[in-house]
């Protein structure tokens, strides 16, 4: 039996500011925010004793809730000017009253439109027992989560919700996002921050003194005024609650269709966003892939304990290249759409699928510690977990998700192991195609039924092959590279990265939409 709290966003929008940036909306709703909304409803509607008991039971529940929430689309954050109320005039004209003006203050109201109006918080192992009625009553009183315009309907459900909604589960090491959570003592903390009972007592005392005042002599009135002033100085404003316990969450792993072939890497790649820290550039071009991945690899190795394992370093203990799959760095770029710019949005770390739990934890620990990157003249960049709702940072966009894909095209060119010998153009393409097919088999895929070699990518905004710097061999000579389209007989699942530069970001492929059949 599980405890499920259902929340429906009645206007179709969630209006709540991300605590880490006032220019972003918070989505999915943090469990702490939901608890604060329930606590507020409790405090504002008479503080019914049973509701307090139910809230204290809720905060004590072991384990973190799973969130079932669809993706959301953010509205651009604009500055609204809101009339103040400390002065009756100003320089801004009022829409509502001709001839009147008022000073205005800038405000922002970040909001997101969830794809699904309803969200669930689920504690799978909770047994509501006798707390259900009080929780249900309290949920019925919750009117908003976030800003006052973020109207909601909230309720308690038995059992777990429909599993077609994407789920977020708490995870300490493979987090995509960080959410604020609540725990034991949360209700008491909120009560203390608000200071309601102390304030109510002071007001009561002041009111009693004011009532007495009119019947007193002037001297006594003066004393009463002094006492009222002293009491007023004890009043304090409510303190804004911070609820600052954060928990990592990741998208719940779907049970994958095992009939669809995958590669030597785990489909669940670890996504990190690249954000400028100290750089002249606001964005990095895809063509800077090799510089970025080289810096990343160096950073990961620095955070890895000696002896460096092959599955991270890519080298055997004797320094020779490893024969086993190892961590690959995949450049995730804004490509494919009408307004795509081709710039680098983030990096995905592809972990070899065959690692045991200890090895995987070891790799994730090293990756998780890399928070900043210095990329030579390109400056310093921050590595942030999570996709922040951006489509091009979602793993399934790059791996084909559970269903996989038949048609793939390169986002970075495939670097060839050797030069093609044929002089004839068509024969050379066949030779290169054969190398690519071998490359697919090397990473665990069946060979594609067709390979098309191209100087440009089939994905919009990807730079042409010649715009990417060439990989160097040990002898200093250049490796040739080219873009390509790969068509498989049946769907396959990524991440697909092929060729001599596959661990360093070259040869990365992304599914082509099935509607754009070639």
């Amino acid at each position: 039996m599980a405890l499920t709290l259902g929340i429906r966003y009645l206007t179709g929008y969630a209006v709540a500011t991300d605590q880490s940036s006032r220019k972003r909306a918070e989505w999915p709703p943090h469990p702490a925010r939901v608890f604060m909304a329930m606590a507020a409803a409790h405090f504002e509607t008479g503080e019914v004793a049973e509701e307090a008991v139910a809230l204290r039971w809720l905060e004590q529940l072991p384990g973190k809730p799973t969130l079932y929430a669809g993706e959301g689309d953010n509205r651009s954050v604009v500055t609204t000017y809101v009339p103040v109320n400390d002065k009756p005039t100003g320089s801004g004209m009022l829409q509502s009253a001709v001839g009147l003006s008022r000073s205005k203050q800038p405000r922002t109201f970040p909001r997101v439109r969830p794809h699904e109006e309803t969200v669930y918080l689920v504690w799978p192992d909770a047994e509501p027992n006798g707390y259900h009625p009080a929780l249900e009553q309290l949920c019925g009183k919750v009117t908003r989560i976030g800003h006052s315009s973020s109207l909601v309907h909230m309720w308690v459900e038995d059992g777990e919700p429909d599993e077609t909604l994407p789920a977020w589960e708490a995870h300490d090491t493979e987090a995509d996002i960080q959410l604020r959570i609540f725990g034991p003592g949360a209700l008491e903390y909120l009560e203390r921050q608000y200071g309601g009972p102390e304030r109510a007592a002071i007001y009561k005392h002041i009111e009693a003194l004011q009532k007495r005042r009119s019947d007193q002599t002037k001297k006594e009135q003066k004393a009463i005024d002094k006492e009222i002033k002293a009491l007023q100085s004890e009043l304090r404003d409510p303190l804004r609650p911070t609820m600052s316990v954060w928990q990592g969450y990741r998208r719940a792993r779907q049970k994958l269709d095992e009939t669809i072939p995958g590669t030597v890497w785990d489909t669940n790649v670890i996504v990190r966003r690249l954000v400028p820290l100290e750089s002249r550039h606001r964005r990095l071009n895809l063509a800077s892939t090799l510089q970025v991945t080289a810096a990343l690899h160096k950073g990961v190795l620095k955070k890895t304990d000696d002896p460096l394992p092959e599955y991270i370093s890519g080298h055997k203990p004797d320094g020779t290249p490893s024969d086993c799959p190892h961590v690959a760095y995949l450049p995730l770029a804004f490509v494919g759409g009408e307004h795509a710019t081709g710039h680098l949005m983030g990096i995905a770390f592809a972990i070899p699928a065959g690692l045991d739990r200890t090895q995987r934890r070891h790799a994730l620990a090293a990756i998780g510690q890399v928070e900043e990157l210095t990329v030579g003249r390109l400056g310093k960049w921050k590595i942030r977990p999570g996709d922040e709702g951006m489509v091009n940072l979602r793993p399934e966009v790059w791996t084909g998700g559970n269903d996989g894909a038949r048609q793939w095209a390169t986002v970075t060119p495939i670097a060839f192991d050797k030069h093609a010998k044929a002089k004839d153009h068509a024969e050379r393409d066949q030779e290169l195609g054969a190398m690519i097919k071998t490359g697919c088999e090397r990473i665990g895929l069946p060979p594609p039924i067709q390979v098309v070699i191209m100087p440009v990518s089939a994905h919009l905004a990807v730079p042409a092959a010649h715009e990417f710097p060439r990989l160097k061999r040990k002898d200093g000579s250049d490796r040739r590279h080219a873009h390509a389209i790969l068509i498989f007989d049946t769907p396959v699942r990524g991440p697909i990265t092929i060729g001599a530069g596959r661990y360093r970001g070259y040869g990365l492929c992304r599914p082509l939409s099935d509607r754009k059949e070639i």
Partner: protein
Amino acid sequence: MAEQLTYKVLQEAVKGTSAAFRCRTKLQPAGGEGTKVFPPTYAGGVYAVEKRRLPEREEPVTCVLLDSVQSQANRMEEALAQAVAEQRIRLPVIEVDFEPYFNEQNAVRPMNQRSDMDLLDPVGKVSSLQAPHRIADAILRDSLLEGKPFRQSDVGRTINRASVQNATPLFELCPTALLLGMWDSAGPKGGLGAKFARALVSEIVGVDAVKGLKTSSRIDPLQIQKNAGPLYRNQKGGWTLDPAEAMDELSKGKPTGKKILFKKNSKGKDVPHKPGDDTYPDQGRPSEANHGNVTPALSDIDPRGEYLAGGVTIAYAEQTSVLSLPALRRLRFPVNGEHSQQRDTAARTVLAALGLAATALADEAGLDLRSRCLLWSKDDLIWEQLNRAQMDSYMVPTDTAISILNEAIDAAKSSGLSWREDPLVLTPSDQLVKLLVKSQEQVIVESVEEGGD
């Protein structure tokens, strides 16, 4: 086919467990489907945009905000005020009467011949439906009731005790504050003053928006030529062609022989000119006083290459209005300290009916959101009653909404609540009038600096 809403259905919904009434209406530009509309622009000349997935479209479409939550609330209050003026509904309002302080003849007198209590522009009566912060607004706070500051009067002091558990004072003085929200942040308790979150939220979004560009130009009927200047600035801040009337450029307190041109430069500095010189800077051109032709130009372009503030075409606009019933259910309405479930339900039903009436009246008035943004709906408003398990739909045309409101008011009165039908009239304090006069003078000075006498 949706049936008409009745008072009984509304009352049961308020009493029960329904989550909300929600109305989603498709609108089109008055100029016809596909004609351009102009959304509100925000700092930087940008629109508020978002992406939305539509089932029939592969890629998400761009949507643009056409009327915000705050603006929709203002329009509802405006519609209610109009209905009150036309005596179609009875609604407690508080008015501050500025009419005695405007006199046409006094308004045009020079400053030194005018009293500091003579308004330059008429303001008329400002009601709690117009004041930005409703009953908690500074205008009402700085006004008098029977000679006393409003919030220190017997009536005004009741607001100090208003809370969710005691919403009666606001119900009887300003019920729209309970519906559309209020925070008494500038009252005696400062930031701890009564706070009521809104129960009614409405917004209009244009769906599948494509940005357009705007042209601007002007043909001067007087055909004043570009080189007909220079315009100098006179002592009053207006412009003059006569150097003798123009302000002098001074150096160490003495005139240099140059005169100050009408407009300041981009750094806010005066620009001098020697009378008689053939050429002069742009700050002296007739166009700085809004005379002459303006060369046709296109909208500015943002760094992404998109036109700014050039309007949009949309597939349709969607107005979504939601009335939250839990928000109303948490309000309590004691009388003389006594609570009653029947009275609470009656008052909450009045507020719900008021919300439906406000939406209907605003719709009936037409959605003339701003210049070149007039929308209309060819369908009646249909409200969905949202429950967990099901959803019922009801038509609520304006007459029905008003009829339900009247029935609800009568029931509330029977339960012991009062419903003021005549406005409570306040007098603005002398300080408020003087401040307003000063503010109006300031606005005029600023507009003269921009556009001449």
